[in-house]
């Protein structure tokens, strides 16, 4: 029963979602929208689980005085402050919630995002060391593309921007489309085997596949 009920639900919902794509009638689209609403409701319930998990994880860390436990205090206090500000004073413009969001969370997010610039540099340095033919090819291609996008590239060779553009629009797009075709087929096959109950690993012990070595 623990195996069959999820399999039947998966099959029915999977077939409905595939069929409704071809049925513009209100019966198909209304059903689709209803399922999306249900998904949002399930998500809202799951959020409760998530918040519970957050409190358990950090509460346990504080209780056991694990390394860096004061950061968990900051996390929980921040959570409570945001919830109180949002529920008591609302979350529209010019509220405390909005202020904290714009002046604390957004700059913190931006800081994390800015780290990307340094990581791109360090990753490029490691990769572009010409230790093999492939790495050398990558290095030369990257140099051409980068030079084609700055004025000095055109100064070095007047057709550098065109070469750079050709690399971006022909070989790059060809490779990208090859990957995307494989992704589409793989995703469709995965969906098919889950809908038909061929793949059961996600059902854990109830339907878990035998493990090969």
């Amino acid at each position, binding site marked *: 029963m623990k195996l069959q009920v999820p399999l039947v639900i998966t099959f029915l919902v999977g077939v409905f979602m595939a069929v409704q794509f071809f049925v513009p009638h209100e019966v198909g689209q209304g059903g689709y929208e209803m399922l999306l609403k249900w998904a949002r409701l399930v998500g809202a319930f799951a959020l409760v689980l998530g918040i519970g998990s957050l409190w358990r*994880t950090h509460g346990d860390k504080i209780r056991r005085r694990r390394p860096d436990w004061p950061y968990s205090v900051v996390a929980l206090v921040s959570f409570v402050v945001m919830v109180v500000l949002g529920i008591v004073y609302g979350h529209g413009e010019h509220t405390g919630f909005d202020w904290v969001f714009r002046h604390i969370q957004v700059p913190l997010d931006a800081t*994390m995002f800015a780290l990307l610039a340094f990581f791109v540099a360090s990753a490029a340095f490691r990769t572009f060391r010409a230790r093999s033919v492939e790495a050398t090819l990558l290095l030369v291609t990257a140099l051409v593309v980068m030079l084609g996008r700055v004025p000095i590239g055109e100064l070095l060779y007047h057709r550098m921007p065109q070469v750079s553009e050709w690399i971006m629009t022909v070989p790059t797009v060809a490779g990208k489309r090859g990957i995307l075709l494989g992704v589409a087929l793989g995703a469709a096959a995965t969906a098919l085997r889950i809908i038909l109950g061929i793949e059961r690993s996600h059902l*854990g012990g109830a339907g878990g596949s035998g493990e090969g070595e």
Partner: protein
Amino acid sequence: MIVCGMDRSTVAGGALAPRTHHYARAEGSLRHGQRFRLCTALAALAICASAWAAPPGAPTQVKAVDNPEDDRGTQMIVSWEAPTKRQRPWGTYWAGYQVFYAPVGRERRPGPLAPPESTEVVAACFKPWPWRPYNTQVAVVYLPTPALAVTDASGAIAPSGAHFVFSDTIGPVQPLALWYNAKRTNVLVMMLLYSAIVLITIHYATRRAEDMYIRPIAGLEAVNDAIGRATEMGKPILYISGLSGISDVATIAAMLILGHLARRTARYETQIIVPCQDPLVMAAEREIVRDAYLEAGKPQAFRPEDIYYVTDSQFGYVAAVDGVMMRERPAACFYMGYFYAEALILAETGNAAGAIQIAGTDADTQLPFFITACDYTLMGEELYAASAYLSRQPLLVAQLRGQDLGKILIAAVLLVGTAITTLATFWPEVAQRFLDWFNV
């Protein structure tokens, strides 16, 4: 297309003309003062008669037709002709129109509002199921003060004191809905063809699946090495299943891989840490790992607190996971699923933490970053093949053959398409028809 319309009675101005002519003939026999009084009285009578005979400012020529652009069958285009200004009730201002509709045999309900200058509105409040036709009316909304009619939170017309003048009821009319979108026939054909290929392959190839050759995938070959490394070092494994929700196939593929991985880590009682960005994914992954440990006969080794929710904020999540990497120093990091800009930040931090890193994603924009920063990367479809590769189940392995046949089919279509496009110089119409068939 269903069309239904009806004219409202018009002012009988023509009937008054002969009588006017009759009084004109008597003009010569009356004195000037009498003539003036008589004309004034006649004019007042004519105005009163005209006001009495005219409709009370209602829209005329009301029509309701199916909206051809709406395949759902929930919309109708309601059109009308505006009443003339002199038909406005005394002391009121013209504030707009409102469509009313009612399923046959039911009470009418208010529909959309339209401004005074409009003569047409798309009414989107109909339901084609269970196929009940509708009667429709258009009312002019007059307000005691000059303002535009709007509906308030309760659905009533604001400001208050609105006076409605209804047109005749037209109908019954029913919007048309389509049961099949013919424009998507190409998708249906390809979907059925590919599904048939996969299913037939599974049916015929399952018995020979054990002898079937699967191209070695370095990233998946390295999974055992990564687990062995973590076990020997006594350090945890960090598993991240992307930043998209549970409805994404990439996330489901990542969850399938986690199941296989957890079965192996359970045997060696190696700790596996799974920080989640989506609470639904967390709940599902916790169950998957729990069942994997049960299946491996090591339920006591399962630590539910190691699969936890962090936050749904993208960079908040990255900051937390980076912190885990630098504090716990995992021996191996797995990044499976769909990733966005955080891919490189995670992979570079994992590299700095000295972990062996295996990534797998179908996000083509993030693949270069993973290839650069990770030891092994599963590219695109390899992410979806991983479950079959790791389990070696005959059914799943046979399905890989079906996937390959699908690729051959697509390659054949690409070759034919290339040839036809090349020959388009000679037969542009044929080429265009072929290309049109693939448009969605």
